[in-house]
């Protein structure tokens, strides 16, 4: 536990750096927030007045100081595009992104890990090459392009998938928020109708993301399985006549999972970032599309809030990976 706390403390400098860098970046964005805020017919005076109101006329360090002070009080500022406090927006949208990303990751894992195992067990075989081509193709597809194609084919042409209207069909109402994950919340109250609706909405964007996640997961699974299968303790296990089931699952896979878990964490944080484009295509009310819109609109506060959220998520994620690694690997527990 002490180690974990230390790790957490160790990631603070990165967090501080992220806050500073984001602050500076959003301040040098070319847009003029005051002009935007003042509206099309504003006079120079009213723009100046708004600038003063927003504190944009003060020197940067002073602005930063007040930003940090607000941050300490949990105030991330206001979004100009939605007109809401950034914190409210992010809290409302984070579950959508997280649910989408997790599902994408799960789909990716469900396909990539078995593929990676097969490729490693049959190294150099046709299956190995095929696996390599498939996963590489997956990672080579630009997500924005995949998303568009999937919508076109599965919604517009085939009509198999529901309208890409966001998390739920327009006429359905979301389940009462517990976790914010519709699939979980709907399951909690046993509303399977809503569950199916939410799942149907989720599947295309999740597949789009999942395709992208295939390659890194399959690659690392294959590589670490290969390394493990070549390890001496596997030879010992074979020499002990253990069944191939025990051999592959208990001995090889569990060892091979160690680097896979680390990669999964990276892939997850990567997907959280990559889904900005997917959210855009699927009208997904997540934080990625929120950030992109804000960035395009030179709307600083949401961008800062988004980046901060992501950084915290990233740190928590690494912590979770550590925990999983500790659970899997006795050696990690002793450091």
């Amino acid at each position: 536990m002490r180690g974990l706390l230390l790790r957490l403390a160790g990631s603070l400098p990165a967090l501080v750096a992220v806050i500073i860098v984001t602050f500076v970046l959003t301040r040098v964005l070319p847009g003029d927030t005051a002009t935007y805020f003042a509206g099309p017919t504003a006079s120079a005076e009213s723009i100046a007045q708004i600038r003063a109101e927003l504190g944009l006329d003060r020197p940067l360090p002073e602005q930063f100081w007040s930003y940090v002070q607000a941050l300490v009080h949990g105030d991330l500022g206001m979004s100009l595009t939605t007109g809401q406090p950034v914190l409210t927006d992010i809290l409302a949208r984070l579950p959508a992104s997280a649910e989408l990303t997790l599902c994408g990751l799960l789909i990716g894992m469900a396909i990539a890990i078995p593929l990676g195992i097969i490729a490693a067990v049959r190294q150099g075989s046709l299956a190995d090459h095929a696996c390599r081509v498939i996963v590489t193709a997956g990672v080579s597809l630009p997500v924005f392009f995949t998303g568009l194609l999937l919508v076109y084919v599965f919604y517009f042409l085939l009509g198999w998938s529901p309208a890409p209207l966001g998390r739920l069909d327009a006429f359905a109402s979301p389940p009462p928020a517990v976790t914010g994950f519709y699939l979980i919340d709907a399951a909690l109250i046993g509303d399977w109708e809503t569950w199916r609706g939410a799942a149907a909405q989720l599947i295309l964007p999740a597949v789009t993301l999942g395709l992208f996640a295939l390659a890194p997961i399959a690659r690392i699974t294959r590589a670490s399985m290969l390394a493990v299968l070549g390890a001496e303790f596997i030879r010992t296990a074979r020499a002990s006549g253990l069944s191939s089931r025990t051999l592959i699952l208990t001995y090889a896979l569990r060892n091979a999972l160690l680097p896979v878990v680390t990669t999964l964490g990276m892939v997850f944080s990567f997907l959280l970032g990559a889904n900005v484009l997917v959210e855009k295509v699927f009208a997904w009310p997540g934080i990625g599309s929120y950030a992109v819109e804000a960035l395009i609109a030179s709307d600083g506060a949401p961008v800062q809030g988004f980046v901060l959220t992501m950084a915290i998520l990233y740190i928590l994620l690494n912590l979770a990976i550590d925990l999983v690694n500790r659970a899997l690997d006795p050696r990690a527990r002793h450091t």
Partner: protein
Amino acid sequence: MSDTALGHARHVVTENPVTGFALALFILFVLAAIFGPSLVPYDPLASDTANALQAPSGQHWFGTDQIGRDIFSRVVVATRLDLGIAAASVALVFAFGGFAGLVSGFFGGWVDQVIGRVSDTIMAFPLFVLAMAIVAALGNTVPNIVLATGIINFPLYVRVARAETVQRREAGFVDAARIAGHRDMGVLLGQVAPNIMPIMVVQMSLTMGYAILNAAGLSFIGLGVRAPTPEWGIMVAEGASFIVSGEWWVALFPGAMLMTAVFCFNLLGDGLRDIVDPRRRT
């Protein structure tokens, strides 16, 4: 005994047809980048609104776009820019990230701490959004796109170079070099760097694909290369609105080209890794 690297490479290519295929594709892309502009049938910038949104035909192999430009010509001509951006950003991050990783892994201590913190900070950003923010803040010019793509790849290069360096820091040949009178920098650049070079080359090939995707993604969002310069990401973005209306070719061909290029670099990187990987070198 085909023990040389070249012999091994030949073996990998013949034993692994996928890598051979990727290599052929790669050569094709390079040729397109070099000679493309002088070979294409149409001026990639010339509009012809009378022939807008024509489906692929003998006249226009990949069809025409909204204002009648020949998509085939545009797609081919775009190769140079797209590969150029990717190559430049990869070269940039290779130089800086690779060196930082070397130094970090070799010296450890506070140097390692500082470089590690910088990497951590970059990693803590959602990378694509960071690239967007950099380009948005500095302006959407090609050098800035290159810079942004380089920056987001920095931690990856640091990590790979560092890990490889750490593995070799204690190697006998490092001590041997010290005994032979090399100082730290000499050992680092003269002994360790050449050894991690193959891995770094693999890394470069793999990140080329990612760099292309990233640049195209920026263009798709509207923060990339400026119109009317032919660039795959912009072309997909332009074509996106025509998919549902049935003019699929406007987005499909640049998208497919983009995919093929990324695919090619990824496969090539994989293949190179097999060549470099000592485990496959018996």
